[in-house]
């Protein structure tokens, strides 16, 4: 049996009367780099905070490597968390933060973190408030990586960075997680940020997950079917039709295939990931626009 790094069942969180996340049942296998995509306010931060044990679920439960989040060192050692606001002690320098990591984590990898920041050219002796946003994000990432967690939860790690810093951050993250069975769950409100580094995708819209799965598998099973005007009931019975567009001359369907398409009249085309995401977000027009912003 595959072990799951993250497994949630019917996870939900309500703040006052508003559900920030509802009916969230997702699975992320160990070793994956999983993108968590959704418009601002879709519930990504709430999900990550519940997985990190910072917030308590209103309904359902989450399991991290089979363990429920708790105020317990056995759980805390498993996770590395980087919050959206990149919280650091402003007057401390990077070396102070690494010392904090060393004193508060039994499995701390001092060499890795120092080498990492040095190789990225980040000064260890300057207060972090005088560093650029990209450098601060690297200090915070080093702190999260240094405790050698099995699950790395990153909340919008590149949101505040300029394109070059984004690229560098993601490249360094990819390098850091390439060796060793760490699983990454990383959120962004922009799909293109995540496409390059992720092999798994969770899409959230209006506080509910709409896609959760391996990206290769998503690309293999989601196709665009086009045919001259034609009855679609057979297809709709066999497969899962996500969108249907009719013009006077032809009909085109975005479909999640459950098997081979038997009718040869349909032309089958591949879809790009953003087209699949867009199809799913069809009924969430505002979310779709937000998530696609920046797609070429």
């Amino acid at each position, binding site marked *: 049996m595959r072990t799951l790094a993250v497994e949630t069942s019917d996870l939900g969180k309500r703040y006052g009367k508003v559900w920030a996340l509802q009916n969230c049942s997702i699975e992320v296998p160990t070793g994956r780099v999983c993108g968590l995509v959704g418009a601002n306010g879709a519930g990504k931060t709430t999900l990550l905070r519940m997985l990190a044990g*910072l917030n308590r679920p209103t309904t359902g439960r989450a399991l991290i490597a089979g363990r429920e989040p708790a*105020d317990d060192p056995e759980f805390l050692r498993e996770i590395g968390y980087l*919050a959206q606001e990149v919280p*650091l*002690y402003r007057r401390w320098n990077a070396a102070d933060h690494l010392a904090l*990591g060393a004193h508060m984590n039994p499995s701390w990898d001092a060499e890795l973190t120092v080498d990492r920041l040095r190789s990225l050219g980040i000064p260890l002796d300057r207060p972090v408030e005088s560093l650029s946003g990209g450098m601060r994000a690297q200090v915070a990432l080093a702190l999260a990586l240094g405790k050698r967690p099995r699950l790395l939860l990153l909340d919008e790690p590149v949101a505040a960075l300029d394109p070059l810093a984004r690229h560098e951050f993601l490249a360094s993250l990819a390098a850091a997680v390439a060796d060793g069975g760490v699983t990454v769950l990383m959120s962004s409100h922009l799909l293109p940020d995540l496409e390059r580094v992720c092999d798994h995708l969770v899409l959230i819209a209006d506080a509910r997950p709409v896609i959760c799965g391996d990206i290769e598998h998503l690309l293999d099973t989601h196709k665009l079917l086009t045919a001259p005007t034609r009855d679609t009931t057979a297809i709709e019975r066999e497969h899962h039709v996500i969108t249907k567009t009719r013009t006077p001359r032809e009909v085109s369907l975005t479909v999640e295939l459950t098997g081979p398409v038997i009718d040869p009249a349909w032309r089958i085309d591949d879809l790009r990931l953003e087209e699949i995401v867009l199809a799913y977000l069809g009924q969430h027009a505002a979310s779709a626009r937000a998530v696609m912003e920046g797609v070429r």
Partner: protein
Amino acid sequence: MNWLLWRQHRSQVFVTVVATVLFAVAVLLTGVHMAHIYKSSLAACTANGTCNLVGNLFSGYGAIIDLVHLSIALPVVLGTFVGATLVAREREHATNVLVWTQTVTRRRWLYSKIAAVLAGTVIASAVVSALVTWWSNTPNALDGNRFEGAQFDTQNVLPIALAIFAVALGIAAGCILRRTLPALATTVGAYVGVRLLVSVYLRPHYLKPITRSFPLNGDVSVPSGSWTLKERLVDAAGKATNGRIPIPASCGPIPDKGGAEKCLGRLGFHQVVTYQPPSHYWPFQWIESGLFVGLAAVLITVAVVYTLRRDA
């Protein structure tokens, strides 16, 4: 965790130590000098048989007297700068999230922080209180009683309990409000409010006061150092008057004030004084200290429950 505590609070420790040392130097120097003045004046006037030292014995010492009286503000200073900032500043900058995702539990983090800060508070306030208590030996000898205001709150055990209370109040305000400035303001306001309520409405009633009657024209002589709560002029039936008694015609012509008092005394008017004797000083110190330590325990419990049960 100890590393974090020291790294975060070392500047507060440094400031507190420096300020306490400076205060100690000033208090020790002037204290020795004032004791000397007091003793030599007492010896001189005893020899003359004309002792009335209350006058201007310590004129020229106004600055140090004010400084010592200012130690009444120590609890609120600790409560705001040490207590209110303890958790509020972390929450304001979200650094609690950073710490709570290290391999140290939220529980241990919170307990260690509160314990460290309360230990520091006890040490600092105990040292200051000891200095003030020692220094106040001579001024106290000149003052009426030690139950009120600056003396009761700054000497012996009560200042330590007040400091614990103020810091606990600051911690609780910071945990609940999660922002430094509102927590500071709440701490100051609530501390001053509770302080006044307790000293005005509760303190006089910790133990049953003594009530004694005195003749109208005699001296009201309660034991030296007593805290006089009430002085009333009552008639023969024991009914309180408003202090303005029409002279009854039966007194005849009244030559002077003394004559009027004599006549009213014959008619049964007398003075009734209610006071707390000096022997109640220590029980009062312990009762009020216990009250504030109890309040502090409640506040700490609220802060802990609030921080551990709620979302980050």
